[in-house]
């Protein structure tokens, strides 16, 4: 017994090393596999508060680009206004429309923390459960899709961006509606994604647009990017192609969180179907 104690005190560095290393690896692996809402992330009050202060300062430096983007969007919206069309009929009639029921709701939020240079990238935004954000909602900006919400606290949320090893979204080719899966490329380039599992019948062209399919969290037709290379790593029975992403993740300032009001209904139905099989 005494010898054992002497042994342990003599090599105490090694034993301490084992204890601390195992502790940190447990934290690391646990968080990665279950994505449990742990308190060590940027949605807690202290780090979230710091990031909010810093991003307030940063947003001044990017005002010009943000203004340009807003002006562009404004002109786009103005083009859709009724008043910008010339009315050539005199007849007007009014219809009480009951066909449309609102399915998607958009919540705007500011990005207060962002990364694009890691193997797994996350964003933090300044809206949380108090503003109606819940886990699993899709996130987009006016240029295209951004990611999905994974952790929500009262005032902040963490988003798993498209630039993440585990991110996969349903996508389709804009012209011939062929379905595929979009994910991040292998070489950690924040401007490149890979469109996978497109059926062999499709005839994609370089420069063709890739949009969301409507099967996952997003409404149909939100842009993702443009095809830039048709010959990437062979995927067996399906076509794989390289996509230049529409969103520049390093310049994100404002994002829209999408609340799909029928999501729970759809999930419940699909869970029912699995149970019946």
């Amino acid at each position: 017994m005494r010898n054992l104690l002497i042994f342990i005190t003599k090599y105490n560095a090694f034993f301490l090393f084992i204890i601390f290393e195992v502790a940190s690896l447990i934290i690391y692996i646990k968080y990665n596999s279950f994505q449990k809402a742990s308190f060590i992330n940027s949605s807690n009050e202290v780090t979230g508060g710091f990031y909010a202060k810093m991003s307030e300062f940063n947003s001044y430096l990017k005002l010009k680009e943000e203004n340009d983007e807003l002006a562009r969007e404004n002109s786009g919206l103005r083009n859709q206004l009724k008043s910008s069309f010339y009315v050539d009929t005199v007849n007007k009639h009014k219809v009480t429309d009951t066909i449309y029921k609102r399915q998607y709701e958009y919540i705007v939020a500011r990005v207060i923390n962002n990364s694009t240079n890691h193997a797994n990238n996350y964003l933090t935004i300044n809206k949380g459960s108090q503003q109606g954000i819940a886990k699993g909602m899709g996130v987009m900006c006016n240029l295209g899709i951004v990611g999905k919400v994974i952790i929500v606290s009262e005032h902040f949320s963490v988003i798993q961006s498209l630039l993440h090893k585990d991110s996969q979204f349903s996508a389709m080719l804009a012209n011939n509606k062929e379905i595929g899966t979009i994910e991040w490329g292998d070489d950690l380039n924040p401007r490149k994604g890979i469109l996978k599992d497109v059926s062999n019948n499709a005839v994609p062209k370089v420069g063709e647009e890739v949009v969301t399919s409507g099967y996952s969290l997003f409404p149909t037709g939100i842009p993702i990017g443009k095809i830039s290379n048709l010959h990437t790593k062979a995927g067996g029975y399906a076509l794989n192609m390289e996509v230049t992403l529409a969103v520049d993740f390093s310049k994100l300032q404002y994002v829209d969180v999408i609340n799909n009001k029928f999501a729970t209904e759809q999930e419940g139905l699909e869970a029912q179907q699995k149970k019946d099989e």
Partner: protein
Amino acid sequence: MSRNIIINIIRFLVLVFIQVFLLKNINLYNFSTPYFYVLFILLLPFETPNILLFALAFILGLTIDAFYDTPGLHAAACVILAFVRIIFISVTVQKDGFDNEPEPTLGIMGLRWFITYASVLTLVHHFFLFNLEAFSLSQLEFTISRVLLSSLFTVFLMLISGLLFFKRKERK
């Protein structure tokens, strides 16, 4: 003694601040990302007891993790770094012969020793950090080149900071 503690607390805060708000946004060609904050562990006094050294490394790692959203990743790399520091110092430095607790800084230990010390420890830290982050061997070449280029950047920053706060106090 108490002066030493205050200096180290300030160093901790300043390094975390620089890492999180400045260096986090720097990324050269997707390859080179500096992790300058490890300088805190490198510069702790020689006489720091092992348990304190490990605890500080663990806390520093978790603090960085909280800002990077990667719980445990930096903590694991920092604990390995602390272990390698103990081995490196026990091999290269004679235990007796320093008065009033000197730190392993550039001015006290000399340029050659400091460069070896900084590069070996940084390489080990970055090697484990990037490999734990990627968590697969399929892109080993890519990860290794990231390790080498990032270490180069980090050591470069360490040398600059060492020269900025240069105090000549050569050991006899």
